[in-house]
């Protein structure tokens, strides 16, 4: 890690192989970082921008998961539901989430609502698919055993199907979170008035490489942080899942 920073420094400040107009040096980066934190940039401080983006991602993600996982469970459980919904899904799915951005802007403008809509689209699909697959991949004997024990439908779904599918559900959640961040940054790059993507946008127009890097760094940091939280939730929920320990 330290070697990387050293390399960075060498390539930029020490030797100017990479000029300041192309990629910022460590000191450029540091300067920009302090600037945005203390005096603000593009309308607000870094913390404020980061919070704006984080808010939207979390909201979009939660809505996507709250709608996607139950749908996936239903489709996995009920073959008629699968037959009904799958074709529509197949048609919508290949459309990259980012492709919804122009439409979202048309419908909902440049505000928060449009961003949440696009995030929802992006994060919804992986949740549904992974939940569905998780349900379908449950070992048959487990379901048969639950049936044999006379388990009624709702208890079966709550206490057997959902826990059994939870490893795959969490995989879906991780993908959903990734998709949420990607979509948010893109949406903010295209049209926004605040947020991390907005920082990137303004910095690009101002030709301010140091600030661009700050923006990217923040995106990475927020992404890493939210993923870490999800991972720790996953570890606790799946403590019983020894098979996957590798």
């Amino acid at each position, binding site marked *: *890690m330290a070697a*990387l920073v050293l390399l960075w420094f060498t390539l930029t400040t020490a030797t100017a192989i990479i000029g300041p*107009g*192309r*990629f910022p040096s460590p000191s450029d980066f540091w300067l920009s970082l302090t600037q945005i934190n203390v005096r603000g940039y593009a309308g607000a401080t870094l913390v404020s921008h980061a919070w704006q983006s984080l808010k939207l991602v979390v909201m979009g993600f939660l809505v996507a998961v709250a709608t996607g996982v139950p749908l996936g469970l239903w489709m*996995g*459980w*009920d*073959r*008629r539901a699968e*037959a*009904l*919904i*799958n*074709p*529509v899904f197949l*048609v*919508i*799915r*290949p*459309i*990259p*989430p*980012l*492709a*919804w*951005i*122009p*439409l979202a*802007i*048309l*419908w909902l403008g440049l505000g928060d609502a449009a961003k949440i809509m696009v995030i929802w689209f992006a994060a919804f699909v992986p949740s549904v698919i992974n939940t569905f697959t998780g*349900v*379908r991949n449950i070992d048959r004997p487990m*379901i048969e055993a639950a049936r044999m024990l006379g388990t009624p439908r709702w208890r079966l779904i709550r206490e057997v199907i959902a826990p059994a599918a939870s490893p795959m559900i969490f995989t879906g959640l991780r993908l959903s979170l*990734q998709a949420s*961040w*990607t979509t948010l*940054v*893109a949406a903010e*790059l*295209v049209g926004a008035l605040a947020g991390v*993507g907005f920082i*990137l*946008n303004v*910095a*690009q127009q101002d*030709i301010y*490489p140091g600030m*661009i890097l700050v*923006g*990217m760094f923040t*995106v*990475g*940091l927020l*992404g*890493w942080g939210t*993923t870490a939280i999800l991972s720790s939730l996953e570890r606790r929920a799946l403590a019983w899942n020894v098979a996957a320990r590798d």
Partner: protein
Amino acid sequence: MNGAPLTIRQGALWGLLGIALFLGLWIFLSVSGIVPKQFLPTPGETAARFITLLTSPFAGATLPGHLGSSLLRYLYGVLLAAVIGVPLGLLMGWFRLLDDIVTPIFDALRFIAPIAWVPFAALWFGTGIGGPVMIIFAGAFPPVLINAYRGARFVEPRLIEAARMLGTNDYRTISEILLPAAVPSIMAGLRVSAGLGWQSLVGAELIVAAAGVGFMMVQAQASVQTTTVLTGMIAIGLVGMLIDVLLRQGEAWLRRRRGLEA
């Protein structure tokens, strides 16, 4: 799951019902004016626009023209990712030292969404082809690298031991043992790469392009030409699906040829 599987006929009927409901809802929302007409044209109007755009240009080119530009960048980006990713991944899987150097860099950059590279892409390449290619590369590179790495690293140890016993040098081990063994993993990685690359392409074109389907859509949005926006979405979806189908076929063919049904 619950109850017996549906027959093909039953499945098809439910499926048609699903699509019918979807189209019906669309038409209803559009015609009734719940969503203003300019923001949600009917399926019919959209289809008409789609056909029109096949021959008459919008924002500089016809639909096939835009698709062509997009596909060109896409192919450059994905091929570049594969050409760098596969060898690098294999080498990393074999030479621990390389792994130790590259992995931390990779981990650090992994959480930055490819799209976040757009500002630098714009700065370095303007609206030239380099911009989108770079973004696509950023999106397509990780899966290929990771899968090539995994494929090489987790090769059946017995195979390596056998190669050693037979006195195989490093170069030959990598090219004749690791590479073939890693092919299934690489193919799977390429499929994911292709998908991610296509998605990144769209994102890139929304911002740093002067041609291509994404560019077309942004222009259409600015002039509130919703039918064109929808056309763009459908075209992107269709091509994306086609790419995935082709790659799946390729993967299946490869598996059959090697006698594996993994």
